[in-house]
């Protein structure tokens, strides 16, 4: 993955608009967060292979960026995106890697289902 090039990422987001696409969205502190830091409130969320269609997708802010997808009757949003790639299966993979290089957030868009 490369660090976000806003103009290029915006073009890629535009290219998936108004199509049925599979979404992967997750935020995570890692399963060990409250083991290493007692009292840490470990929260996160994860969806995968949910089909949506967005009419407008936008990359906002300086790095770490925010990505918002406007749906006909709702929204999808990810904060903290630093890296992206269009992989060999034409899937748009976006991720937020913390200063330690560990994944904190991922938002991925694909016209074909992600692996299980």
């Amino acid at each position, binding site marked *: *993955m490369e660090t976000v090039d806003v103009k290029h990422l915006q073009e890629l987001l535009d290219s998936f608009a108004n199509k049925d696409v599979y979404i*992967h969205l*997750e935020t995570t502190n890692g399963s060990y967060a409250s*083991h290493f830091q007692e009292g840490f409130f470990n929260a996160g969320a994860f969806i995968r292979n949910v089909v949506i269609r967005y009419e407008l997708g936008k990359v906002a802010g300086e790095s770490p960026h925010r990505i918002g997808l406007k749906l006909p009757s709702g929204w999808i949003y990810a904060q903290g995106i630093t890296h992206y790639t269009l992989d060999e299966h034409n899937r748009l993979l976006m*991720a937020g890697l913390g200063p330690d*290089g560990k994944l904190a957030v991922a938002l991925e868009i694909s016209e074909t289902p992600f*692996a299980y």
Partner: protein
Amino acid sequence: MLQKERHVLIVFPHPDDESFGTAGTIAQYIEMGVPVTYACLTLGEMGRNLGNPPFANRETLPQIRKQELLDACNAMGLTDLRMMGLRDKTIEFEDPEKLVKLMTDLIEETNPSVVISFHPTLAVHPDHNATGVAVIEAMNRRPETDRPVLYMKAFDNDTLNQLGEPHVVHHTPNVADKKIAALRAHASQTVWMLPDMEKRWAADDKDALDWLYNEAFYIHEFK
């Protein structure tokens, strides 16, 4: 001193669980000629560690970790690896009966005298605990006379308080090189801790060498 066993079945949810907690034990059993089967439930698909600098992404991580797992097993001399096809971070949400059946099938096929897995409440990661729960339930349903011994890994911060000192400690300095090789094989996961560990081993740091040479287990008491 490890006892000669008929067969050892190891069940953990993530590639690298076996290397952190039991690589010395596995390598030692294999050197003794004890057959070892390792059932790894997932490919660690949801890991946060993607290498440093990152060489994986969310979608390539499973294949990278699969290869790391194969390399780690090779380093330990383990040839009977089963990849069970579940997804990282979802074990506790699976149908419990499906998991019990998975464990039961493994036990019936391999007929182990020892099973090694995680403690059902003191293994920190929800996947670890859920794996331990399913293993214990599968073994609970067996007749007492046909029940292997269950060794459990536990490392919650409250473990000593709740369980006391480990019941069994395997001392395996003679296979430390294999354990190190297995840990190195899991590069996407261990690149954060290994360089520091290697320095401490080289400096004869007592805690670091203790971690490398000794593997502690609790034995489950079936009611």
